[in-house]
């Protein structure tokens, strides 16, 4: 199979979505930030000049424009930029988009797609390293996805454009350049389905976004110690695919949840609580969470590393879980 970068696949997904549906458009085209991949967007800019606009630095206004247009039947893709800028559009996302279908008794929907670059990106410090997706998961009515592979980035962006619901796509800034295998013909990925990326007997590692890569690396380290880890990539954060997760825990009896959001009320806590509620009897050991420490993100490299999950920390958590039950 050929390999492709996450960034390239994302761009392909946007391109094909624009080509497939003339209701689709882009509000904000700096989806890949200002890094080395940014020129990949040029193909879209050239082929769909009428359906791309770059808004003022006004995240709330841009988001509202997308939400309103979606309510009127369009399919806008709104780029929110760096994760922390999401907070400026929080009311448009949670108070307006998320409740549109419910409040209208199902007669209006806001099929807008939001995209943000999340995560500890290296030197981003406290204001350019946010992962707001845990907060967004707490707003009923939103679909939230966080792909890790090129194939899923393509498939989920296509699904988001097609979805009648507001969908947030969180791409980790460090994923953009990472290449993974893609099939000859990339296809839509169903929102709400997790994916077992590695089969294993001893412990289930549930992760998403960049953390799935790290978990796969951790699984290799663990394999060298004779621990056979199963890695489940969440892909979609809400709706949460509890079935696939429970199914895996049924086989392994142990769970480590890995996510880069801060600890408290984060995605790792949600997955843990879901299993502690619905899969308690399957568990042989405490559930471990590996997350960003509950600390703002510092600029300096050794500090940043100290608070951020990495393969070694994931492997350590898995080893501890193996010892404890």
């Amino acid at each position, binding site marked *: 199979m050929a390999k492709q970068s996450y960034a390239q696949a994302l761009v392909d997904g946007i391109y094909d979505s624009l080509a497939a549906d003339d209701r689709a458009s882009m509000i904000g085209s700096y989806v890949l930030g200002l890094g080395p991949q940014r020129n990949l967007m040029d193909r879209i800019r050239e082929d769909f000049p009428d359906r791309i606009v770059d808004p003022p630095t006004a995240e709330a206004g841009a988001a509202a424009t997308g939400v*309103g*247009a979606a309510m*009127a039947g369009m399919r806008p893709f709104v780029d929110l930029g760096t994760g922390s800028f999401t907070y400026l559009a929080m009311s448009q996302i949670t108070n307006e988009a998320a409740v549109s279908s419910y409040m209208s008794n199902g007669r209006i929907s806001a099929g807008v797609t939001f995209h943000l670059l999340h995560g500890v990106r290296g030197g981003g410090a406290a204001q350019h390293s946010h992962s707001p997706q845990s907060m967004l998961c707490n707003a009923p*009515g939103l679909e939230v996805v966080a792909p890790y592979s090129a194939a899923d980035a393509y498939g989920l962006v296509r699904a988001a454009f097609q979805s009648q619901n507001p969908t947030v796509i969180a791409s980790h800034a460090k994923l953009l350049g990472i290449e993974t295998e893609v099939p000859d013909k990339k296809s839509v990925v169903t929102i709400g389905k997790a994916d077992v990326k590695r089969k294993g007997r001893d412990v289930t590692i549930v992760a998403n976004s960049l953390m799935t890569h790290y978990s796969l690396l951790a699984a290799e380290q663990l394999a060298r110690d004779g621990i056979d880890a199963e890695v489940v990539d969440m892909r979609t954060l809400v709706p949460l695919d509890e079935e696939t997760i429970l199914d895996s825990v049924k086989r392994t009896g142990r769970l480590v949840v890995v996510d880069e959001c801060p600890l408290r009320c984060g995605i790792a806590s949600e997955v843990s609580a879901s299993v502690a509620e619905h899969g308690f009897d399957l568990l042989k050991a405490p559930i471990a969470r590996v997350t960003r420490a509950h600390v703002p993100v510092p600029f300096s490299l050794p500090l940043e590393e100290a608070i951020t999950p990495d393969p070694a920390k994931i492997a350590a958590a898995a080893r501890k879980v193996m010892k404890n039950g």
Partner: protein
Amino acid sequence: MPTPLPDDVAWRLLESMLLIRRFEEAVLRMSQEGQFRGHYHLYIGQEATGTAVMSVLEPRDRLNSTHRNHGHVLARGAEPGKAMAEILGKATGLIGGRGGTIHLCDPDLGFLHTSGIVGGCISLGVGGGYACKQKKDGSVCATFFGDGALEEGVSFEALNIASLWKLPVLFMCENNSTGSWAPGEGYPTLVHASTDLRLIPQSVGIRTMRVDGADAAAVREAVSDAVARCRRGEGPAFIEAMTKRWPGSNPLWPEPATGVTDIRIATGETQAGGAHKDWIENHDPVLRLARALAGGGNDARTRLYALDAAVKARIDDAVNFAIDSPLPAPATAFDHVFA
């Protein structure tokens, strides 16, 4: 001075305005009777604005409304029974009882959303205009908001975006914070350093107009001009419709300060009185238009009374429909989270 309305148009507008007035009086009564929960915001005193705007808009046009939406929804043609049922949280409500008074909305009539977040509608309305422009069908999006919405930063962002992209948006600012609408007299209840709200859209290059919001003819003329410009691709327009603060709407829990409107005041058969005599005689937009029409002699007076009676009967039916309607089944609370 606006061009006077043709007679048939004037009567149509009056019917709509009366319908809103009688509806709001019923809402007030139902609230006092404990028929529904939650705070609410009446459109009394502003009937001419919404009615005149709707008389210009076409079916293909889109709209957005606010917490003070009853008049917009009715003027656009929603069924009063379903609107009242919505306020009562009934299954037969416009949106199944899920929104109540603050979110009254009729999706079939082009409403996109009714937001109770101040600044919500104005910014979503820009999205409506974006959609109209993408459709290239000459449609416009009318977005209603109060003077207070211009305190929210997102409204400024919305104005800027609409102006930049020349979106066909009618920004309908209903300024109900003034005792007198002469320019420069300030905004007594608004918390704004601006003494002239038009300067805000003007600062981002949007064409503005100010009209007496209690004068249906004036509003209609301004809106016709603005909408025509929008349809021609000239970009957004901003209209500030000034209405005198209805004495009942301050503080938020309205009391029926001006009482139930006696239509015979318009014909001189009854005299206005009470603490709010001035508002009733000089501002009340319903009586104002009724007075102009009833001046047409005995026939007109008879027609006016008949119209009022018919409207009252319609509202009685609406109230009965709403009261008799069932509440939604609890299990349906889990439906429609996703489309």
